[in-house]
């Protein structure tokens, strides 16, 4: 009983600040403290007319999509590789693929900045995507790894025994089996990129993503306008997470259903 109360108190600590942000995004006055003086959508209405914010959202969507696609291709191949190599090669690859997640974003950001400066590469949307992939790829691979340990290699062997060549096995057995997991993991990579700020600061040059725009708002003042942007970003993140979860589950079900029908 004590344990249960403790757990819910801790979860309350996690959720309460976020809930308060959401609540005050609907506040009728600019004050950010109780007593609450009535609901209003004025801050959301004010956001609609903000062209700079719109441009930042579009930029972030483009970057997140490019990041997710790159991660999907690189991570998909990596996942297939992970199923095939063993022992020391696997360990070496994991160290290479997963270390960026265990370092502060600051370290990744400044080292990319010096690399780009040394290579004479102009900072742009392109360099932001490069940085985001370094951060998102480990997340994608880590997510996939847990699922892939359930992958049954005997299905590939069976296809091969039945006379399928390597390409056919790959196209008709392996890809359909790992695709749902892969797509779900790529959506997580999208979410990571959409929210990324710490690395972006160093590799963005003059570009402005949504988190960078929000940051510039926060530095100027505290206004419910930021609460409204935050709430929308939160709703978007939850929607993206839900999409990842739903695709992972639904596709797996249809894949199994299709197999049993044939």
């Amino acid at each position, binding site marked *: 009983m*004590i*344990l*249960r109360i*403790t*757990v819910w108190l*801790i*979860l309350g*600590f*996690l*959720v309460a*600040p*976020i809930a*308060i*942000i959401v609540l005050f995004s609907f506040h009728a006055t600019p*004050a950010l*403290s*109780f007593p609450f003086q009535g609901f209003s959508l004025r801050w959301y209405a004010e956001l609609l007319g903000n062209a700079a914010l719109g441009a930042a959202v579009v930029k972030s969507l483009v970057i997140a999509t490019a990041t997710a696609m790159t991660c999907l291709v*690189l*991570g998909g*191949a*990596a996942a297939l*590789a*992970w199923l*095939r*190599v063993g022992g020391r*090669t696997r360990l070496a*690859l994991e160290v*290479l693929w997963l*270390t960026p997640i*265990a*370092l*502060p*974003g*600051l*370290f*990744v950001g*400044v*080292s*990319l900045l*010096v*690399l780009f400066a040394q290579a004479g590469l102009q900072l742009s949307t392109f360099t932001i995507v*490069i*940085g985001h*992939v370094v951060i998102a*790829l480990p997340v994608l*691979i880590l997510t996939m790894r847990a699922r892939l340990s359930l992958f049954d290699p005997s299905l590939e062997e069976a296809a091969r025994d039945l006379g399928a060549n*390597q390409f056919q096995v790959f196209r008709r057995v392996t890809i359909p089996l790992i695709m749902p997991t892969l797509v779900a993991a790529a959506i997580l990579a999208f979410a990571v990129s959409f*929210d990324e700020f710490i690395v972006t*600061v*160093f590799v963005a040059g003059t570009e402005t993503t949504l*988190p960078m725009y*929000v*940051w510039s708002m*926060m530095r100027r003042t505290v206004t419910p306008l*930021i*609460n409204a942007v*935050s709430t929308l970003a939160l709703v978007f*993140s*939850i929607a993206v*997470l839900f999409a990842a979860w739903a695709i992972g589950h639904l596709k797996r079900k249809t894949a199994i259903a299709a197999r049993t029908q044939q």
Partner: protein
Amino acid sequence: MRLSNQTTGRLLAAPAAFYMSLFFVAPTAVLLVYSFWRAASYQIIPDFVFSNYLNALASALFWRVTGNAITIGLITAAATLILAIPVAYYLTYVRKSQAILYLVLITWFSSYLVRVYAWRTLLGTSGVLNTVLLQLGLVDAPVEALLFSRFAVAITLIHVYLPLCILLVASSLRDIKPELVEASRDLGTSQLGAFFRVVAPNAANGLIGAFMLTFILVAGDYVTPQMLGGPSGQTTGLLIADQFRKTGNWPLGAAQAFIMFALSILLYGAITLAGRWSGLLPGARRRQGAGA
């Protein structure tokens, strides 16, 4: 021609391995090289000098902010771990609640900046916390020290990294058989006893790993100290970030980054040793088992 599994595997691993070598390993190497160069009148000159390291180590400012970073890092990592353990324990051994799991995942994926901003509005002089304290009559005037202090930085970072820590601890508990915990509970041990006698010794490596990862991420954070730290809550991360964003002395910033990295590794070694001596880590576990 049929390629062996191992060969196909290596070919498939190549793109991601190449990408990480090019954009993670190579930049780290370039940063290391930079730390031996020197900056003179806003230009960076290739060289091989140790002056960046020596200057950083001789600077009182560097040690002050590093002291801050380590204090905030240790407090935050310890508090995060202590808060993560009950939740992870509950999720693993008492009830596998999907609701709690999704709650944790949602907070982890909710924007970092939003959470920093949330604490900024909560802790401000006209913020929620101060108004509540005033209304309860606990204080006479708004407490200004809530915002722009080490306390503000620590509590924000605890909030930011707690979900990750819960997930890490839960995954390290998953390797311990629930039967062991059930057996100790049947024999009359309390939940707390079961944790300290059964779970902690077996999960010690995972718990220390979670602690260290949180410490490294927290000590290297520069956004929260900038937003909430004020003059007394500055950290090494912020100092390094400013070398690259403002002052433009990249070689010095690079050297500071590697010193911070080395300090983290030293700390990891120290904690592992302390764990062995105190009997929490394997090696000394047998003795504890015999005594129980």
